[in-house]
C-alpha cells in the first residue's frame, strides 16, 4: 500500500478532536433508533415507527475490522449510517474519535464525515462520465485541494489499489472489481480514520471479491473499519464479528 502519499497532508484535514486520546475510534453506546420518530433523519411516512436498533453498543478500536452480520432488517445499515453521521439515533451516543455525533449540527456532522469517515457502497456509485482519477479526486474538491494535488493524490491512491494504469478510464470501461477498488480509493482520498463498507463485495464474483477484501484488510491496518455483509467470506476478514438480530446485538465473536 502506498498510503504514505495521503498521510502527508493528514494534519491539514483533521479536526481538533483528532488530538484527543480515544481507546476506540468508533463507539456506539446504548444506541436506539426508530425510523419515523422525530429523532431520526429518515421518516417512513405515517405515524407508525419501526425500531431498527435497540440498545446497541459496539466499540471499534483503530486498526480493527469489525464485521456486522445479520439478516436483512437486522440493523446493519442503520449502524453504518449512524457511524457515518447520516442519521442521528433516537437515543444513545455515537462517538467517532471521541466526538459525539449526536451532539453535532447537520453541518458539523457533514464536516466530520468528510474529514474522518470514508464510505464504500455496495453499488460503487461512481459518476459515469468522470474518469477513475476524477471520481477518486471528487471528495478533495469539496476540501478545496488544488487540482495538481488532487491529481497526485488520486493517482497514488489508484496505484495503491492496483489501478495505476486505469486512471483515465471511465467507470463503464472497468470491471465490477475495478470499480469497487476505485470506490475504495475514493473513500480513502481524504485519508479518513474510519471506513464503513456496506456489502462491499455484494456485486462481485468470489475471486474479485477476495481481491477487494484483501484491499480492505490492508486499509484496516491503521484505521477502524466496519463492514456489513451477509457473506461469510467477506466477514472472514473481520477481527471481530457482531451478529445482529431484530436490532439487538445477538452475539460478538
Amino acid at each position, binding site marked *: 500500500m502506498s498510503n504514505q502519499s495521503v498521510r502527508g497532508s493528514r494534519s491539514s484535514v483533521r479536526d481538533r478532536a483528532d488530538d484527543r486520546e480515544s481507546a476506540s475510534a468508533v463507539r456506539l453506546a446504548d444506541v436506539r433508533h426508530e425510523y419515523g420518530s422525530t429523532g431520526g433523519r*429518515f421518516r417512513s411516512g405515517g405515524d407508525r415507527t419501526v425500531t431498527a436498533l435497540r440498545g446497541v453498543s459496539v466499540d471499534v478500536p483503530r486498526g480493527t475490522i469489525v464485521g456486522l452480520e445479520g439478516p436483512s432488517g437486522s440493523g446493519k445499515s442503520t449502524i453504518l449510517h449512524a457511524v457515518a453521521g447520516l442519521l442521528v439515533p433516537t437515543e444513545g451516543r455515537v462517538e467517532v474519535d471521541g466526538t459525539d455525533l449526536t451532539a453535532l449540527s447537520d453541518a458539523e456532522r457533514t*464536516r466530520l464525515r468528510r474529514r474522518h469517515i470514508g464510505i464504500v457502497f455496495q453499488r460503487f456509485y461512481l*459518476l*459515469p*462520465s468522470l474518469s477513475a482519477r476524477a471520481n477518486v479526486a471528487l471528495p478533495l*474538491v469539496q476540501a*478545496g485541494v488544488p487540482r495538481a494535488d488532487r491529481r497526485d493524490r488520486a493517482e497514488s491512491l489508484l496505484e495503491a489499489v492496483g489501478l495505476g494504469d486505469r486512471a483515465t478510464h*471511465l467507470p463503464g470501461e472497468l470491471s465490477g472489481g475495478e470499480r469497487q477498488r476505485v470506490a475504495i480509493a475514493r473513500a480513502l482520498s481524504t485519508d479518513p480514520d474510519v471506513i464503513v463498507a456496506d456489502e462491499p463485495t455484494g456485486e462481485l464474483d468470489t475471486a474479485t471479491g477476495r481481491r477487494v477484501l484483501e484491499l480492505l484488510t490492508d486499509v484496516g491496518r491503521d484505521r477502524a473499519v466496519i463492514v456489513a455483509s451477509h457473506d461469510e467470506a467477506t466477514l472472514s476478514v473481520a477481527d471481530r464479528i457482531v451478529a445482529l438480530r431484530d436490532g439487538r446485538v445477538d452475539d460478538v465473536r
Partner: protein
Amino acid sequence: MSVRGAIVRLRAVAGLALAQLRRAPGRTTLTVLAVTLAVLSVTVLGSLGVGVVDKGERGLDNAGQDIWISREPVDPSAGGTANPISGAHARSAELSARDDVDAASPIAMYDVYVGTEPADLQRHPAVGVQETHDGFDFEAGDGFEVDPETAATPPPDDPQREEIVIDPRVADDLGVSVGDTIHVGTSRETAATHEFTVIGISGYYSQYLGSPAVTVPLGDLQAVAGTEGTDRATFITADVADDADRETVAADLDAAYPEYDVRTSDDQIQSVLEERSIVLASGITLVGLAVLGGVVLTANLFALVAHQQREQLAALRAIGLSRGLLAGVIGTQGLLIGLFGGLLGLAATPPAVIGLNRLSASVLGFEDLLRTPPAVYAGGFTLALAVGTVVALVAGWRAGRYARIEHLEA
C-alpha cells in the same frame, strides 16, 4: 484558505461540468443547437424589426414628407387601392398655400398594364407622383419633376409628359432600357393607346408595395386611369414649414379636414405596422416558441441527467460533498450550454442575415432589409445568458433535490 478554497472549488466545478459535457457529445450537441436556434431566431427577428422600421423611416424621410393625409386606412401593398381623395390637385394647392406647410402633393396608386406590345402586357402597381426624389437612387436614367404651375392645376384629359420610371425587374422582363417606349394603361384597351418613354430605372416604390412597381407623373396616371375628372389620389403628403411643429400642424389639419385621416410620418409607420400586427404577432410567437422550446429542452435534459445520476449524487452527498457543489456541477453544464449555444447563435447571425437579405432582395426587392445594430447582438447574448441561467437553476435545483441520502438504497 476559504477564498482560495472557493476558487479551487469553482474551477473544479467548471472542469467537472466540462468533463461531463465532453463525455456526452450527443446530448451536448442537441442542447447547444436548441439554444443556438432560440438565440438565432431572436437576433434574426430583431434584425428584421430594426430593418423594417429603419427602412420605413428612411423611406418617408427621403420622400421629404412630414404629414400623410388619407381618407381611410390605406394598405400600401394593395395594388387596387380605391384612391378615395377627390379634387387632389386643388386640395394640395390649398394645403400648400398654408403658412405652416411648405408644399403638399398628392400620390395616386393604380394597377397598370405595361408591355412593349399591346398583346403582351404585364400587370404592375403604378404610383403617380409630382416628382421623383433623391431616394430613388436610379440605376439608370433619371426622374421627372412636374413644374409648380402644372402641379397646382387639375389634370388634363390626356397624358402630357408620357414618361415612366420602371423597376429593374420590369425592365429585365420587358427587355427595355432608358429611352425605349412601352405601353401603359389601367386596362388592356387603354394600354394599347398610351405609350410612355422609360426615363429611369429604380425600384424605390417596389420596396413599399412588395412587388415591382412603376412610377409616372400623377396627371398622366390619372389621365390613363380616366380619373382626371374627379382628380383622385390615395394620399396627399405635406412637407411642414421649418418653423412649424409637425404634431401641431397635423392636429390643425385633422381639425380642418375631419373627413380625412391625418398622420405624421411616425404615425404612418405605426399604422402600417398595426396593419401588419398579425404578421408581427406570428413572428413574435414563433420566436417565443423557439426560446421556450430551447429552454424547456435544455432544462429538461439536464434535469434528466440529474435524475439518472440521483443515486450517485446521493452517494456523493453522503461522502460529504455539499449540495451546492453537486448542484453546481449539473447546473454549470446548463450555463455552459446556454453560453456556448448563445455565442454560436450570435456567430450564425451575420451569415443568416446576409442570406435572408439576398433572398429578400431577389424575391421581394428589398435591399438590406435585415439590420444588425449592436443592440441585436446584445439582445441575443442577454437571451443566451438568461437561458443558461434558467437551465442552470432548474438543473441545479433538481440535482440538489436528488443529492439527498434518502435516494441511496439502504
